[in-house]
């Protein structure tokens, strides 16, 4: 017995000291809420962790609103579909916040099959002085009750509770890849590989299918839906991206079933870059409207593109994220990295866009100055208050001192999920099981 516990102690400290991440801790989504006060992360183990920004204090101006853990809860559990003999992963695919309408916070979280609405609320008072039970909850002996009293709310230590308010299930045959809340704040869409469903936040037993691209004969399937998002201002407009590299804009006023798009965005393929993997790398992994609603941003394996909603035949801007990988597609295909789905984000003013890459690098592109920067999220480079140093990948020829060569890149360290504060220059970057929060330099 003693030996066993010794082994366990050794194993635990070994695991802790060597930073072996358990798979359940891998962060699978990050999202700021609409005020930027809260930051939510979801992980592969089905947990949601919400961080809250500290109030800025005048006495300590250098501690500019740091984020601390506010609430942690288990959103989804692993399930088993007995009919199809399939396990349903508890991994949180997406979290979307609802804009705050009262003291409580609401967010939608989804795994592959089920969307849940969670209410996060604070409790800092509790009623004391019940008549029929005492403060510990024990029932009082009726014979000892001699008078009536009114319970009084007394202050207590702050408690943050998360309660599941709605469960939206049984609407998706395929795996949910995205959810998006409408600007009307009453409906939202959930999207799987072949269908987009419209829900009312109040009604859980019914959803409307608004896009269905499933062919009558599955053998004729050529493309799937990879992401969908509502327009930030127009409550009747949404866009969805496909694995073929196209984006469709749909207007819900035209018909109940939005199979006919009103705009179709696609850039013709450049025949000179055709390879075995052209289809895979042109598949769009993320689509995001700009905050002003005039542009769309898409991410495929090697590039980020900004589209003007008024121009369908080609993107307005194309940014190369890591073009040096173009010659390595075969090995990236063999080690599965070519299937990685990177996300992209706008900053609050739509002037800068950001996306992740490998080796824990992430890239920012300034749309106005056309300058770009590569930064790294790693423990060694991220001492508190340290300024991030720009990184550079050496693509050929002589490697300079600070550069890293393509062959030295660690492809197991990938940044798929990032988010940008809606108003300020604060970003959150998920690197496997670590969350990095970076802020603008304080003057």
């Amino acid at each position, binding site marked *: 017995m003693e030996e066993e516990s010794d082994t366990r102690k050794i194993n635990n400290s070994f695991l802790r000291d060597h930073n072996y991440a358990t798979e359940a801790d891998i962060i699978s989504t990050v999202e700021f809420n609409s005020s930027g006060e809260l930051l939510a992360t979801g992980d592969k183990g089905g947990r949601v962790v919400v961080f809250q920004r500290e109030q800025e204090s005048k006495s300590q101006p250098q501690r500019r609103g740091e984020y601390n853990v506010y609430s942690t809860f288990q959103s989804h559990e692993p399930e088993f579909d007995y*009919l*199809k*003999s*399939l*396990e*349903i*992963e508890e*991994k949180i695919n997406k979290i979307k916040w609802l804009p705050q309408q009262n003291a409580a916070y609401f967010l939608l979280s989804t795994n*592959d099959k089920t969307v849940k609405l969670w209410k996060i609320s604070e409790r800092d008072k509790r009623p004391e002085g019940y008549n029929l039970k005492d403060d510990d909850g024990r029932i009082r002996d009726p014979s000892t009750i001699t008078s009536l009293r009114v319970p009084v709310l007394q202050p207590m230590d702050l408690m943050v509770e998360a309660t599941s308010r709605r469960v939206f299930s049984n609407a998706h*045959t*395929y*795996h949910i*890849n995205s959810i998006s809340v409408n600007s009307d704040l009453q409906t939202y869409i959930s999207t799987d*590989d*072949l269908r987009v469903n419209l829900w009312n936040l109040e009604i859980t037993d019914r959803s409307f299918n608004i896009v269905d691209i499933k062919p009558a004969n*599955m*053998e004729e*399937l*050529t*493309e*799937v839906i*990879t992401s969908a998002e509502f327009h930030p201002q127009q409550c009747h407009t949404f866009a969805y991206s496909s*694995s073929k590299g196209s984006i469709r804009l749909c207007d819900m006023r035209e018909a109940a079933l939005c199979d006919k798009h009103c705009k179709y965005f696609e850039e013709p393929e450049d025949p000179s870059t055709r390879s*075995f*993997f*052209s*289809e*895979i790398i042109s*598949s769009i992994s993320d689509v995001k409207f700009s905050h002003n609603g005039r542009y769309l941003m898409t991410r495929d394996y090697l590039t980020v593109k900004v589209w003007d909603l008024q121009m369908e035949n080609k993107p307005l801007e194309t940014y190369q994220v890591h073009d040096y990988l173009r010659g390595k597609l*075969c090995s990236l*295909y*063999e080690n*599965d990295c070519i*299937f990685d789905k990177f996300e992209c984000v706008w900053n609050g003013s739509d002037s800068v866009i950001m996306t992740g890459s490998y080796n824990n690098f992430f890239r920012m592109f300034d749309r106005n100055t056309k300058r770009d920067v590569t930064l790294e999220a790693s423990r060694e480079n991220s001492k508190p208050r340290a300024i991030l140093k720009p990184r550079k990948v050496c693509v050929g020829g002589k490697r300079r001192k600070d550069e890293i060569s393509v062959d030295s890149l660690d492809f197991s360290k990938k940044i798929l999920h990032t988010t940008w504060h809606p108003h300020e220059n604060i970003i959150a970057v998920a690197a496997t099981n670590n969350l990095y929060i970076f802020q603008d330099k304080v003057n």
Partner: protein
Amino acid sequence: MREAESTNLNVLIVCPGLISKTSCDMEVSVEAKRIMVVALGKLYSSRTQRGGLRLHRSLLLTLVMKSARDMYHEAQTTAESAAPGCKQQQQQQQSKGEVATEPTGVQTELQGPASLATGNPRTLPGEEVVCSPAELRRDAENKENLCPTQHSRKRRGKAAVEPDFLPCKKAKLEQQLIVNSVLLDYVNCSSELGAHPTPMPLQRAIAAC
């Protein structure tokens, strides 16, 4: 010279000795083949993955396979057109039941389609690479029925026939079937009233096409 007994199948008789591929085409062929093998491996391992088959990933893999197959065919065609002596064989690809001029390769090759036509579930050994998953399924079904002698009859030494990847029309059909049956499997697994996927006997599938 024996005519191929199969009437359903068009067979490309390839004679390695005569075809001289350019090194570029060779590279493309080798790469295409490797990509297809890897794709098949990934498709089959994804069945046991947690969370079930991922439609998007499966679709991308099948597209890569088709892309590799098409590029391989292209490379083959350019290689063959570069070697005029083999044009005859290229034509045979289109016509049914014609016979190659080279005797060595032919006998063993023709046994392949003949055996299939008679319902014997063995593929041409040259197509092992592509057909192995289909083979696996058939083997699972017919384990008791296969007798060992059939194995030895079909296996040829490397010295006898070189091409280990025959781009005949039959291979194309099989690939399509493999690919489509994986998607069908997914549908069966995912649909509300789905039945468990059953291995599709190859002969029946070819007849259906």
